[in-house]
């Protein structure tokens, strides 16, 4: 049996696909969080980071295609496994079955996964393609080059309480998903042993808590005004820069007349 056959045809192989794609995606979401935490630095930092990613050109598309493939395989293996599992129990289920030790997270992987998928689609429309983005996108001068002001886009994006709540709920569900997935992937790859199973559970719980808090901090800071818009064009249009006895607008009005 060759390796591809073993991966895609056997029950254990599909679990290996689930684990490895899950590992890649966990790496991505943690990297994504670390990148976004730059919102707490001066705006130039995250704008330069976003510009760097955008300027990767074809490489960016290779990375995107790879991530999409990982998501696709993760979902494919989930569907294939669920269908097999349903068939394995048979048409007639139990009238009464107790849960003995399965965690809440492990029993709701399907639902947390589906809602997170819906969130990812919204998130891409929100911040990547900007189809679901309300306020206009401001540009900012970065070392003599005009680049999109991602800092302002994020702060404004989280001003809507409904959007912020949806982000928090989705991040919460992703954290729940990871709380089972993180230790589960080690089991599926055969790397979980009794000697460090307890340690693994604690580490994965700690990673989950930190992951949630990190994301919640970004949403909370933008929503609460702890992180403010620092784009001068936006500040001027919203009247934030107005001071008593300022002549700027009068001069402008006068020059227009």
């Amino acid at each position: 049996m060759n390796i591809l056959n073993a991966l895609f045809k056997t029950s254990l192989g599909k679990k290996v696909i689930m684990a490895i794609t899950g590992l890649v995606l966990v790496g991505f979401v943690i990297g994504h969080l670390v990148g976004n935490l730059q919102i707490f630095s001066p705006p130039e930092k995250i704008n330069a980071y976003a510009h760097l990613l955008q300027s990767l050109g074809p490489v960016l598309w290779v990375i995107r295609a790879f991530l999409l493939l990982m998501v696709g395989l993760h979902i494919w293996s989930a569907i294939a496994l669920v269908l097999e599992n349903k068939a394995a129990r048979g048409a007639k289920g139990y009238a009464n079955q107790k849960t003995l030790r399965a965690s809440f997270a492990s029993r709701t992987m399907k639902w947390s996964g589906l809602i997170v998928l819906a969130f990812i689609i919204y998130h891409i429309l929100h911040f990547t393609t900007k189809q679901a983005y309300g306020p206009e996108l401001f540009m900012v001068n970065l070392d003599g080059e005009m680049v999109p002001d991602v800092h302002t886009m994020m702060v404004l994006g989280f001003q809507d309480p409904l959007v912020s709540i949806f982000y928090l709920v989705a991040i919460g569900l992703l954290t729940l998903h990871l709380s089972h997935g993180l230790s589960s992937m080690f089991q599926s790859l055969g790397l979980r042993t009794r000697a460090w199973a307890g340690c693994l559970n604690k580490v994965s719980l700690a990673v989950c808590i930190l992951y949630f808090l990190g994301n919640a901090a970004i949403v909370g800071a933008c929503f609460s005004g702890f992180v403010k818009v620092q784009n001068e064009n936006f500040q001027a249009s919203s009247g934030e820069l107005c001071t008593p006895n300022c002549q700027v607008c009068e001069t402008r009005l006068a020059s227009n007349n």
Partner: protein
Amino acid sequence: MNVKLRVWRQKNSETEGRFENYEAKNLNPNMSFLEMMDVVNEDLTDAGEEPIAFAHDCREGICGTCSCMIDGKPHGPEHGVATCQTYMRSFKDGDTITVEPFRATAFPIVKDLVTDRAAFDKIQQAGGFITVRTGAAPDANSIPIGKEIADLAMDAAACIGCGACVAACKNASAMLFVSAKAGQLNLLPQGQPEKDRRVLSMVAAMDEAGFGNCTNQYECSAACPKMISEEFISKLNRDFVGATVRNAVKAKAL
């Protein structure tokens, strides 16, 4: 003590089954669950009705014949015992106890609470053995084996093949059984010659029998009357990955 029973009755694999209600009266709390079933069957026989069919043999927790989903848990409410070692003192007077057969496509119902668990035999035949030389018995301890390894192999070998792991699993997966049967041999020097072939064949037989997939919830381990650890599942996964890679790259005869 008295209990009410809600028992799955099914004439054979072709007919539809249904729950029937029975009453078991004047029970001694120190009767085993199966002895209580014997009492109910005596009454049914006296009344000219068909007794409830349930699987049993040794009645001392080592043969793996007794099964039954009792109140939603294989082998009843206690931990680390088979149905035959479950006593009526584990229930309260007046309780209604739901008794169902193990449910899995790979374990078709033969009658009432009896299921055909021959799928486990097929998995065993696929690789649950070692090659031994025939002739006189070898000297004891002629192959040195560390105590930790011997203990671990013995833990896996405690599997009685009852099928509680499949019954408890939300996916009717047989991973705990297969991992225990493959693991006990893969751990020991005697099991090394066929190790890779064993893992690949037993997993293939498991998939072919129509068992589900492991979701790493470890319900199997919690329901196992021999308390076999889910660690053996991890070991089976590890051995499977290793066997697949080695099998793909190993030298082959023309």
